[in-house]
């Protein structure tokens, strides 16, 4: 099964294109030190707002820092954090969803009430409240995302576990004498994974956008951190003279988000068997038993 999902994924050109961009960016983020020619926070006022040149391919910002280097260092802040956040969200949401789905009764109600509470707050509001207490910083922002976004995963896993419990192969596994652990880990869990993986990939893209968004309004990373949102906010005063300072960080966000969306959609086509377009054909193709 994994084999032919892989094959379907490789055939999906756009997904591969997305994956390629992600890998390139990840590498750039990991080896930022070597690739970027300058220290992203080195202030050099004499060199303020320089146009693009060989040494500063994208020019410098209002503090004379190389924009390209700040973009490269920014990868670590946005992509790595987003992947870390999504991973933690999965660690919280998926097991809770499994417990709610499999045990039902009080556990199910408890988890679902918690999920309802988590989804009563718009993200801006919670960000304001949390950052209001502990002060603006990226780690506090991470707390907000985790509190907010574990609920959809829990609901998704819970509904597929409930559906799976009624399927014949789960009952057959019980009839075949499997232990509860085998039934959960070998039969139920793998079959809840596909939608979770697809949704997680799309969620990484959303986290990246939100990190930049909240940093732009000052709730996330603070200057001089090379966060793309912060760079956008710095560039706001120079909108008429140096639009470049606004254009490049925004483009970086779009590229990363676009790559993850492409990859996510490719995974969706490969992992989740869409209703065969040729349902009628399947009926006819099945004749040579």
């Amino acid at each position, binding site marked *: *099964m*994994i084999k032919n999902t892989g094959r379907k994924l490789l055939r999906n050109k756009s997904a591969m294109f997305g994956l390629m961009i992600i890998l390139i960016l990840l590498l750039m983020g990991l080896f930022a030190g070597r690739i970027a020619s300058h220290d992203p926070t080195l202030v050099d006022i004499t060199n303020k707002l320089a146009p693009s040149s060989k040494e500063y391919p994208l020019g410098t910002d209002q503090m004379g820092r190389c924009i390209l280097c700040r973009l490269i260092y920014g990868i670590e802040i946005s992509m790595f954090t987003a992947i870390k956040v999504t991973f933690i969200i999965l660690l919280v949401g998926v097991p809770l969803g499994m417990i709610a789905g499999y045990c039902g009764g009080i556990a199910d109600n408890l988890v679902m009430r918690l999920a309802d509470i988590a989804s009563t707050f718009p993200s801006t509001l919670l960000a304001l409240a949390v950052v209001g207490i502990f002060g603006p910083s990226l780690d506090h922002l991470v707390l907000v995302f985790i509190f907010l976004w574990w609920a959809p995963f829990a609901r998704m896993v819970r509904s597929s576990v409930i559906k799976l419990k009624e*399927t*014949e*192969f789960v*009952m*057959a*596994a*019980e*009839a*075949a*004498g*499997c*232990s*509860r652990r085998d039934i959960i880990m*070998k*039969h139920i869990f*793998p*079959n809840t994974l596909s939608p979770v993986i697809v949704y997680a990939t799309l969620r990484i893209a959303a986290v990246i956008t939100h990190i930049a968004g909240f940093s732009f309004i000052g709730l996330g990373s603070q200057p001089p951190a090379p966060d793309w949102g912060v760079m956008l906010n710095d560039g706001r005063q120079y909108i008429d003279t140096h639009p470049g300072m606004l254009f490049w960080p925004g483009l970086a966000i779009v590229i990363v988000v676009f790559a993850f969306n492409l990859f996510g959609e490719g995974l969706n086509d490969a992992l989740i068997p869409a209703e065969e377009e040729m349902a009628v054909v399947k009926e006819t193709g*099945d004749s*040579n*038993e």
Partner: protein
Amino acid sequence: MSDSGNMVEVKGLSKAYGQRRQEKYAVYNVSFAICKGEILGLVGESGCGKSTLGRLLLRLERPTKGEIYFDGQDITGYSFTEMRKIRDRMQMIFQSSANAFNPYYTVRQIISEPVMNYRKTDAGERDALMTEMLEKVGLDSSYLNRYSHELSGGQRQRVGIARALILGPDFVVCDEAVSSIDFVLKKQILKILAEQKKKNGFTYLFISHDMAAVKAVCDRIMVMYLGNIMEILPEAEAKALHPYTQALLAAVLEPDPNVKREKKILFKESGELAIPEAGCVFWPRCLYATETCMHRSPELREIYDGHFVACHYMKNKRTLEENA
């Protein structure tokens, strides 16, 4: 306790779904026994609770009331682990719908699962056992590496049978084992089940809404309607006495144009399918419904030896026979 002659015995078994007050009974106050080496047919329209009853016998679902005895042991209250110890002696053949098999499993993994749970065998012995079983159901070892979505309906059905019979269980529940597949395959599957029974003396509960298949295979036939047992026929060709069974048999379309059934639908036209508050569940659609039928639900009583009927009207059985 139950006498040793019965493989499975059930007393006053009920299963209800839904919240506390308005729960609906899928199975209501059912009592019967299946002797060793017998094929008991269980027939009824879709939604009458036959599959639920089948799953209750194997404790794949928890009963709300009543007792279940398996080969003399009272397994009603067994825990999950206690049930695991005896699961190899009882198995189920499913309808093999779309989600009959775990999509990530190959046929080898599907069939070897019960073997690994109950037999100390190494890979070689397991493969030999599985190949032998596959050949018995008309497939061969080349299917072992395939995934379930690469198989056709008929092949999936046989893998389901192989999985159920590989441990040589004493008791097998076939839940609509033949109804969802092609006409041509139906006979092959019925032949396989019959051969297995002859060779190893299995006991079957054969659930189906297809009267022709049930009549062809079963020793005794139990008729179910809205969760209640209406009648137990001592043998397949026995004369139906309960009005519902008569109506059911009248509705079977004979695949022979010369046998023109006179147009007779033995049902009250307006009756709907909901469970009435009181009395016999069938009275809204029964042609012979009387006052008593509407208020008191009849118990399953033995009219002749082995012929049970749940019907008040049965007091004077002659009148029923005249217009049947």
